[in-house]
């Protein structure tokens, strides 16, 4: 593909439901990142995958949040028992090692 692809583009869910967000990185990129951005705010680091190394999960805000990545391909971010404060844009990016990151267009999550 030409770039990082995220799906869905928008997601509205009811409080308490689980959601799964998907990220397709650029082929060959070893690094993959997830960030959360609340309205008018900066990017909050969530999790980082680098090749087959153990992921850096230091940014996950609670145990309701988890992410997986199979090898150097697709990643999914799962939020269980969603809360209204989870409403935000979730951004995924991929990168070749020690170089610029390429971002997807994000998933706008709204919890009602």
């Amino acid at each position, binding site marked *: 593909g030409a770039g990082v692809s995220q799906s869905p583009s928008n997601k509205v869910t009811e409080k308490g439901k689980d959601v799964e967000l998907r990220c397709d990185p650029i082929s060959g990129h070893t690094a993959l990142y997830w960030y959360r951005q609340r309205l008018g705010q*900066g*990017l909050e*680091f969530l999790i980082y995958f*680098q090749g087959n190394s153990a992921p*850096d999960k230091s940014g996950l805000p609670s145990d309701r949040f988890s992410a997986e990545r199979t090898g150097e391909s697709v990643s999914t971010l799962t939020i269980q028992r969603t809360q209204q404060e989870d409403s935000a844009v979730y951004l995924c990016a991929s*990168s070749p090692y020690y170089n610029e*990151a390429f*971002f997807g267009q994000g998933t706008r999550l709204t919890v009602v």
Partner: protein
Amino acid sequence: SQQGEEDPQALSIQEGENATMNCSYKTSINNLQWYRQNSGRGLVHLILIRSNEREKHSGRLRVTLDTSKKSSSLLITASRAADTASYFCATVDSGGSNYKLTFGKGTLLTVNP
């Protein structure tokens, strides 16, 4: 946690003027990057400067890096209305194999026609 801190938080200028944004960070870095974001969605990479570099140019963009002061600046010359966006700096810590990319809170630039 935030690594880079941009200054100012918001900047409003007239078309044709130059815009300068600053970024300060706390740790030793491998490189520092600047990104632009339009309409609160995906970010676009602008320029990367490595810790052994002091200045870099790309078109109307000029980035400087002062590792002794742990700071960087982004200069946009001859600004255009289309430059209106949020600008973020991001750092990669030096050492190890962890390439976590940490962003600041951003500067909102408005270029008035």
